[in-house]
């Protein structure tokens, strides 16, 4: 009854957050005295899959079917259920991300397994099976006890630091008996933003608010983000005004992010905005108004005009990188 972890990949490349999910599964497996079986779907090289061993997967079940390169929630669910049954798995780990949300709740409903979305801790097994998660988009945390025999946990990405070990893995092919219904969704067109760091994965984020005055000034945010290797985000009015695409909108009614560094420029720090970003490890606020509420939630503050401060900061980062 090994711990099952669903590992996603981006066209054959496994990302850091997926290694983190394996690492998390491994932490739970060790506590329970069992092993980890990872499940990976679609076309991926063995050399890439073998990397999972270093994060604690003793075994990988690989469903090598090219149709699984696209997200088909029902097919993914069928594949996971086949793997769970084969391994007698009772604990299933996925990430709390777009694909995880399409699959994990389905698996949980099918297995009648209690579900925790956005786990921030390992389960506390002394008190039952208790996991901490953010509620009210980060305004509070809840300790959720899973009372069912089977359990599905969706880990919040970027929660645990990961380290490579010398562990090795064994790859087995898994054949799944898909039904016609499993591929009921037809994917007509995919457009990926390339060359930019995606917001949900980013450990550094530069974010702009209405204080940036207009879309024509966004190059200042982008220049800094580029220099740092950061993703860009924005407040809601900014995406409402179409200065920025809506997927960059963070807050209680946008994305919730937990980067290592969040630089907020010209954002007042309304409670709805803070809700989505207050899990960030370090917050820097740049605002010309010393009374802006965001300063209360910040680690470092710069009172000044963004148009002047941003180029200076970008320059300073450039200098720092050269001398490092």
């Amino acid at each position, binding site marked *: 009854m090994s711990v099952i972890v669903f590992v996603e990949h981006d066209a054959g490349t496994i990302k850091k957050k997926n290694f983190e999910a394996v690492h998390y599964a491994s932490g739970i497996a060790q506590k329970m005295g069992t092993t980890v079986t990872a499940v990976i779907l679609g076309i991926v090289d063995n050399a890439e899959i073998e990397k999972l061993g270093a994060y604690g997967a003793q075994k990988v079940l690989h469903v090598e079917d090219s149709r699984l390169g696209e997200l088909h929630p029902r097919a993914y669910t069928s594949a996971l259920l086949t793997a769970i049954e084969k391994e007698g798995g009772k604990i299933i780990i996925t990430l709390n991300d777009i694909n995880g949300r399409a699959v994990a709740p389905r698996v949980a409903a099918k297995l009648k397994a209690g579900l925790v979305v956005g786990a921030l801790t390992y389960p506390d097994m002394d008190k039952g099976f208790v996991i901490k998660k953010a509620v009210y988009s980060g305004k509070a945390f809840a*300790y959720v006890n899973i009372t069912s025999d089977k359990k599905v946990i969706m880990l919040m990405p970027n929660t645990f630091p990961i380290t490579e070990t010398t562990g090795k893995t064994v790859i087995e092919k898994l054949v799944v008996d898909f039904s016609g219904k499993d591929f009921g969704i037809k994917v007509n067109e995919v457009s990926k*933003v390339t060359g930019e760091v995606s917001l949900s994965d980013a450990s550094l984020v530069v974010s702009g608010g209405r204080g940036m005055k207009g879309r024509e000034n966004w190059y200042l945010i982008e220049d800094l983000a580029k220099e740092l290797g950061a993703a860009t985000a924005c407040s809601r009015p900014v995406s409402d005004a179409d200065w920025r695409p809506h997927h960059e909108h963070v807050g209680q009614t946008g994305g919730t992010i937990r980067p290592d560094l969040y630089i907020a420029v010209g954002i007042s720090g309304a409670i709805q905005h803070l809700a989505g970003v207050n899990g960030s490890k370090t917050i820097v606020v740049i605002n010309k108004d010393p009374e802006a509420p965001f300063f209360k939630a910040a680690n470092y503050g710069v009172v000044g005009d963004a148009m002047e401060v941003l180029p200076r900061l970008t320059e300073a980062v450039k200098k*720092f990188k050269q001398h490092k």
Partner: protein
Amino acid sequence: MKILVCISQVPDTSTKVVLKDNSTTIENAGVSYIINPYDEWYALIRAIELKESGIASDVDLVTVGKANTEPVIRKALALGGDKAIRIDAESTDPYLTAVYIAEYAKSMDYDLILCGKESIDYNNGSVGSMLAELLDMDYIGFATEIKIEGNTAVVKREIEGGEETDSCKFPLVISCQKGVAEARIANMRGIMAARTRPLTVITPTVDDALTSILSYELPPAKAGVRLIDPADMDELVELLHAEAKVI
């Protein structure tokens, strides 16, 4: 074509969370409640648009909640919708919520079930996907545009690092986010009409919750901001490197 919209009642977004009873409960005195923004701004309004353009014949609303959720359901009916169903139970566990809605919806032949991307209180975003499993339907999450062509939904949705367009035959469940519809406010006629639209209360077959919340905690307060001279960004970079260790 028949649409069901799932509506959840949530605390207003400006709510400050206060804990009580030894941190086992969130204080609800003084909290005002709203329709979950994703359910209202996107799922419900899109359903109403589809009805107005003659594509949808019926738009029904469903919520899982006790009698205290009725004002919010009436507010939703004031925006539009033919009738509302309140399933008389506390919605504490996403699985239970999905089971109750599925029990009601399974014999109703809905072509399309719309819900919001997540509720802004418990942020689980899992009821839609569970519902699809329980009703043996397809599910498309994080939609940013929904068009109907005959018996097919053509949906733009967010994917990791981009966007894709899917099509799927009815019946299916779609979770909605920004882009799906333009927010609007209820007018007086809607508010008056909502009073006469039927609101049916049904009692679900009680099932067991699979999770329970033992306690809550508030985020630790920040130690206080350290102000940096706006002329000296080298200092900030140095602190981010040496002290915060984030770059």
